[in-house]
């Protein structure tokens, strides 16, 4: 147990160290891409908590991502002198509230019904974002400038990509690590119970409605944080941040990476964004590839990339796997 | 008519049947007895193809059934009356009966023994309620309906799972009478039952199951003689 724990912490420390060194190792272009990957990694992690851990297939996760993205942009534009932290905190507060309220409606249904409803709600949000031109900029979107970071003793120029990269690495990194920690906490374990046997939970004193609502709100807030950094990263947000496509994107990332493990979706975000960057350079048939990837994954490797990695590991003699990865089919509602 | 040989069946991960064998001759009414959870229903479902045995063979009129879909088995002339009745709740009684009729023609002299009129003759209650939704029937009526529905398919063999479960004594009597009539018409019947006293009234032979295996096979006399078996596997 403890050696495993140690290995986990070591791994996290290693990744962080690697992250810190990155600006010295790669070009600015790649650093830019890496920042994007980190942001989407959190988005994918939050989605996986919903899909992989709780078995809830949502087509409306972009509601929260977009809400966070827009909150940051709108508040930075309309509140002069607002600090970056406060903008991000506002985004978190906003998505938490929205998650709580929409969750109340959406969680009354399960399975395909839930999927359909979340899709419809996402469309509603999208329609509002498009229509409410005055606030959201409608089709034109909103452009912002990252405010500099005042640490009291010094100010850090956020216009500089490397500086912003470090801020992203720390904030999003901490959020991801917290999400990982979350899966081990009481609530995280409760989420697993929910996926395994919601019926039985009730007879053990758990309020399943509240459990689902808490989780839904939490993942919404995480997605909102990712959305907030999405805006800060691109210094721009438009309605596509809140579109159903943005949900599809995270669904694909999560699915490609594999819903069975915590780290799978992060890998998925990594691969997805790189693929997207290179493939869309080479071909404008990106959606065709995406469709094919979907079908091949569903039919052949429903466990995603992490499943492949796991099976490769199983082939190595002497390394019997004691993990119990959850096959994606068991995660289905 | 039907030979079940050493079948093993699983439900998910739990191994329910550990090598069950039984045999029925044409025209027999055989009763499968045993406590709750020993695998009686699973045996019927395995024959019907609703649970696929992992091992063993089931032959019906010489044809292997293992690996066939339930509908294929049904078309060969096997009727199934499930334990929890499973009538179609949103359909009317008449529509439920129509669901029993099979399109595929089978050769044989006993073709169309059971017609809708005959069924209604046998179950006047159903005729009365022919327009009612399945969900509005009483337990007894539902049981009648499931049996009648199966008969509409003119099966050669009927598998009945606990036909008297939860029924009032008067209705139990009706059901037993109905089974006797069915049997007289030449249909072979394999019945799962817990109601020992009901069973001994109608059955020719008995099988007793304990924990996924057959522990007894024989006629009434043998059963009455085998006090040990009865005590261990059936009685209070």
């Amino acid at each position: 147990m403890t050696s495993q724990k140690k290995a986990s912490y070591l791994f996290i420390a290693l990744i962080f160290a690697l992250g810190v060194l990155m600006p010295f190792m790669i070009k600015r272009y790649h650093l830019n891409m890496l920042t994007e990957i980190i942001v989407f990694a959190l988005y994918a992690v939050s989605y996986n908590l919903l899909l992989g851990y709780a078995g809830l297939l949502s087509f409306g996760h972009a509601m929260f991502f977009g809400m966070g993205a827009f909150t940051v942009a709108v508040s930075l534009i309309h509140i002069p002198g607002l600090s970056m932290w406060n903008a991000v905190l506002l985004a978190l507060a906003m998505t938490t509230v929205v998650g709580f309220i929409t969750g109340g409606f959406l969680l009354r249904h399960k399975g395909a019904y839930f999927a359909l409803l979340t899709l419809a709600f996402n469309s509603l949000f999208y329609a509002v974002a498009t229509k409410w031109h005055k606030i959201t900029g409608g089709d034109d979107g909103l452009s912002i400038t990252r405010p500099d970071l005042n640490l009291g003793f010094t100010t850090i120029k956020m216009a500089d990509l490397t500086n912003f990269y470090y801020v992203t690495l720390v904030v999003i990194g901490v959020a991801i690590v917290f999400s990982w920690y979350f899966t081990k906490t009481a609530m995280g374990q409760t989420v697993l119970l929910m996926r395994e046997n919601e019926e039985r939970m009730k007879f053990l004193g758990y309020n399943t409605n509240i459990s689902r609502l808490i989780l839904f709100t939490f993942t919404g807030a995480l997605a909102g944080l990712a959305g907030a950094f999405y805006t800060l990263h691109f210094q721009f947000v438009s309605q596509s941040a809140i579109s159903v496509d943005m949900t599809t994107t995270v669904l694909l990332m999560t699915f490609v990476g594999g819903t069975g493990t915590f780290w799978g979706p992060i890998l998925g975000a990594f691969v997805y964004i790189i693929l997207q960057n290179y493939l869309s350079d080479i071909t404008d048939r990106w959606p065709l590839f995406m469709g094919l990837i979907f079908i091949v994954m569903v039919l052949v490797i429903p466990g995603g990339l992490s499943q492949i990695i796991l099976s490769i590991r199983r082939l190595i003699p002497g390394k019997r796997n004691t993990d119990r990865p959850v096959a994606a089919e068991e995660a289905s509602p | 008519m039907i030979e079940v040989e050493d079948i093993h069946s699983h439900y998910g991960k739990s191994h329910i049947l550990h090598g069950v064998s039984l045999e029925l001759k044409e025209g027999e009414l055989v009763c499968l007895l045993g406590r709750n959870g020993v695998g009686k229903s699973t045996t019927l479902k395995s024959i019907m193809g609703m649970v696929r045995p992992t091992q063993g063979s089931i032959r019906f009129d010489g044809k292997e059934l293992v690996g066939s879909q339930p509908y294929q088995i049904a078309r060969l002339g096997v009727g199934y009356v499930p334990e929890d009745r499973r009538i179609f709740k949103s359909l009317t009684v008449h529509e439920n009966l129509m669901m029993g009729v099979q399109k595929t023609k089978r050769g044989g002299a006993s073709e169309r023994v059971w017609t809708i009129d005959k069924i209604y003759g046998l179950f006047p209650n159903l005729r009365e309620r022919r327009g009612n939704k399945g969900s509005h029937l009483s337990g007894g009526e539902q049981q009648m309906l499931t049996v009648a529905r199966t008969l509409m398919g003119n099966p050669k063999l009927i598998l009945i799972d606990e036909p008297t479960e939860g029924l009032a004594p008067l209705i139990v009597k009706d059901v037993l009478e109905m089974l006797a009539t069915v049997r007289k018409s030449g249909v072979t019947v394999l019945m799962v039952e817990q109601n020992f006293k009901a069973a001994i009234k109608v059955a020719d032979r008995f099988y007793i199951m304990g924990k996924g295996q057959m522990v007894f096979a024989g006629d009434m006399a043998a059963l009455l003689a085998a006090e040990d078996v009865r005590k261990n596997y059936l009685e209070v």
Partner: protein
Amino acid sequence: MTDYLCIREIHKDFSGLKVLTGVDFTVSEKQRQAVIGPNGAGKTTLFNIISGRFKASSGSILFKGQDLSAKPAHVRNRLGLARSFQITNVFQELTVFENIRSGVRSRNGLRYNFFRKPDNNRRINERTEAIAEEVGLKGVMHVPASALSYGQQRALEIGITLSTEPELILLDEPTAGMTREETAQAISMIDRVTAGRTLIIIEHDMDVVFSLADTISVLHYGRILASDVPEKIRNDQRVKDAYLGEE
């Protein structure tokens, strides 16, 4: 003896099908009550209504003077009522330890906490281990439930039921599908773990019923046919008829 659990005139219809037609009975504290009756008599439905899985069509349930009728299942559990299921109903992909711990931590209020890890809570883990030991699963604590044998799964079913430290335990055919030897073990285990608590048990196996219960109620056609001490029930003609069918 006070009226600890008091069930009044419970009716239950399933879209027209009357399953319970006025069930009335009381259970006193620390009593061990068995509910028997032929298949389809409505026993499990009655359990479902007491535990809050279904709502009764009419009637009331009083537990220590509180009306439970409108309370959801998880509240009833927190009031001290727990049940097991006839068809094994555990968390298949979780380990035995995690299965049992889910109830133990619920009992200790560690349900939705975002920061505390159950792993780090010694009291909860010790209690979980103790329960695993009580139901004889200590040796397989870190095996996923799905990999257990049938008998072990049934034991886990009881272990989970015990995990919230209930005062009133409802066991729905705890020995269904067990071999004779397993049943005998199960009886002594149940007898041990439910000592000092109120127990209501549904059972077909009369060995189990007679060795565990001090009162037996016979449910037939959706109502209580008879309620008495075991010896009297055994000799009650109505019960015999109900059980073995009428002549």
